[in-house]
């Protein structure tokens, strides 16, 4: 009998993952090509730099929420956590007070605390993720308002605002996104916890029966997602040079949309960071193109809605054809 786990087939999973993302890749290329023809300034360095700057925050959030969606959960609290961590970081970033690491770490930790609490409520409290994170969405916003007294926290030192600037002509937020995405992709691929995220999302009971600590795995996903939301909040605060308690309203929706466009299943167990990045880029490029074409932001919202539903519809069609 030929070896049932032959070498040729080792390539299969990779090919399949690639194949499932082909739709997004093609959409991205087609959009890029169309924009390059319609408006020459699309391909300019200045504009492309602008695109990556604009998608960075959405991208960092999307990477985090990918982890949660992989477990079959959801996190609706991202926007409020962004605001809270921005306020926390801004408080500690007045000129000459602390070194840069302090506000950054504090913002990330504030986010991780929110995410960890989400995780505890979901795993120990057995509250459905939708409800648990909906509660956090409201409560974290409240904490941000309390900490800031409802006013923007300004007077930010130059060290933190430089986080929103450029480094070797590349926007720092884009570098942060790249580092975060690489780190998350590496974790999903090379660590036991990464594998367990897929197992828990794919079949929670089977994961438990295989001796996996399901609660710990889920907790980790929510905590990491919260930490990344905290990081996104710090980057946002640096960009707008204030800690805004009212920032980030509805910021949770675009990342979830990007993740789903990128092929991660809302039911959990399928997907990854690569697809998420493609989804983020696709949404960013389309938004940028509509800006360049002077489409009013009202219409842009309609287009965005159509893309979200259309991408998933397209995916379903493709999958049902595959199954036949």
């Amino acid at each position, binding site marked *: 009998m030929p070896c049932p*786990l032959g070498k040729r087939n080792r390539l*299969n999973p990779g090919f399949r993952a690639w194949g499932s993302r082909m739709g997004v890749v093609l959409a991205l290329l087609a959009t890029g090509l169309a924009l390059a023809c319609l408006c020459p300034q699309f391909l300019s360095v200045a504009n492309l730099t602008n695109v990556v700057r604009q998608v960075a925050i959405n991208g960092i959030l999307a990477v985090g929420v990918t982890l949660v969606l992989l477990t079959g959960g959801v996190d609706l609290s991202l926007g409020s956590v962004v605001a809270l961590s921005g306020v926390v970081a801004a408080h500690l970033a007045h000129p000459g007070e602390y070194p840069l690491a302090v506000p950054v770490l504090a913002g990330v930790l504030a986010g991780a605390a929110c995410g960890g609490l989400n995780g505890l409520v979901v795993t120990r409290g057995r509250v459905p993720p939708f409800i648990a994170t909906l509660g956090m969405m409201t409560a974290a916003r409240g904490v941000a308002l309390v900490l800031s007294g409802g006013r923007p926290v300004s007077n930010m030192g130059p060290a933190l605002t430089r986080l929103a600037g450029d480094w070797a002509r590349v926007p720092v937020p884009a570098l942060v996104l790249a580092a975060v995405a690489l780190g998350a992709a590496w974790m999903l691929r090379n660590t*036991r916890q990464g594998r367990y995220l897929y197992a828990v999302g794919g*079949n929670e009971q089977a994961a438990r*029966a*295989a001796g996996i600590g399901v609660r710990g795995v889920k907790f980790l996903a929510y905590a990491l997602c919260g930490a990344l939301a905290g990081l996104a909040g710090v980057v946002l605060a640096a960009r707008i040079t204030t800690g805004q308690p009212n920032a980030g309203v509805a910021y949770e929706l675009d990342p979830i949309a990007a993740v789903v466009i990128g092929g991660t299943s809302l039911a959990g*167990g399928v997907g990854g960071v690569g697809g998420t990045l493609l989804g983020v880029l696709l949404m960013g490029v389309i938004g940028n193109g509509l800006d360049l074409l002077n489409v009013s932001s009202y219409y842009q919202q309609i287009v965005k809605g159509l893309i979200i539903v259309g991408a998933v519809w397209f995916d379903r069609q493709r999958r049902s054809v595959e199954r036949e």
Partner: protein
Amino acid sequence: MILAAKEVSKAFGGAQALRGVSFELAAGEVHALMGENGAGKSTLVKILAGLHAPDAGEVLVRGRPVRLRGPHEALRNGIAMIHQELMPVPGLSVAENLLLGREPRGRLPGTVDRRALRREAVRLLGLLDADLPVDAPMGTLSVAGMQTVEIARALGAAAAAVIMDEPTAALSGREVAALFRVIAALKARGVGIIYITHKMDEVFRVADRITVLRDGCLVRTAPAGELDESRLIALMVGRELSGWRHLATQRPRADAGEPLLVVRGLSRGGAFRDVSFEIRRGEVVGLAGLMGAGRSEVAAALFGLAPAEAGEIRVRGAAVRVRRPSDAMRLGIGMVTEDRRGYGLVPQMAVWQNITLAALPQLCPGPLLRRTAERAAAGEAAARYGIKADGAGQAVRLLSGGNQQKVVIARTLLAQPEIVILDEPTRGIDIGAKAEVHALIAALAAQGRAVLLISSEMPELLRLSDRLLVMRQGGLVAELDPLTVTQEEVLSYAMPVRKA
């Protein structure tokens, strides 16, 4: 001839599932469809039930060629199928599930006559001699209960032909007897029945004719009287399986090794009470009983899926607490669960990832995965247990039932458990794979492990066990010697005592 397939072929992707198979069902006969998993039985009946369209050939109803574009059209032609995978709506009542899609109309358009619905539900369940609460939500029933409803549902809908795909897989002895009575009544009324099963004794009890498929081709159709068990097996596997009936008596009986697992007074409310037994090194202990006797629940308690509330578990002499599966696994307890879909597999994950899932801490100490070691271990396990996949990267949900079961077994054993719990390890797998699993169980014992075997197939239990425990209604009622006891005696212990 009420239903026939003429020269039907069907391919899925590259795999040819059926090649020019012809099949006929006469009025009033039970026609058994036999074959190993992947032989094409399910594909054939799905074509007859309108779930698949054939690539070539045709389906004839009462001699007329028909094109069935879905189960509804099949139903209109008098063909109903009882699915192997149950498809109930858990929130609706038993009665509503029974008549789903053909509710009796009320006086106003679009309304349901609820009283007529209830009446009809009671009548249908009465046909099956099933004592089920028609108003209870479907989700509160046991698997056996749900299957009974599914059978009653098909009986109510179909007049001419009923397709039963492993109808007794989850039924208790009493329910099976009731089903066979209903089959007899249906035959008397001229209804034809296509009956798929892996259980030999059932085939010869109910079938008038037997058709054997192998690798998508028709091997033979013959009256049941012309075949016997060994000839039927030979037709199914294409070769003689030597000696599989006498496996247990051939292997050396366990000497009284040290007790690896000792259970004293184990109880969980409503599931089992005061269960005490021990398993020694190198011993296979069989656990017999009817559905709902509490066997799977005891196993779930030992493995930490649903911990016991009282009593003591001792592993290698030391009292232990098992609160979750990871506790059990640390103690060297492994379990092959009964429910492949629920507790067994992560369907979207690759075959090799499913195999290594439980053994990752051993294979990859530390937080990082060691893909090479993992691949090697998975590849070795796949070869050892004969898992046939289109490459290890294939998603496990695409494998046949028998291969999925082997993946679950491979995963459990890869973690090197000393105490192995097997809950219905051969349910729904074909006879060749069954023989392999039987050999594997004997090998486990020979390696000095302790095996707890739960099975609803009495011959399997009698063949493989060193000692046979019988559970009835949550309690352990007998310990028997499988070498001397008969199936009838075991059943007499397992049957509930009727109150006079």
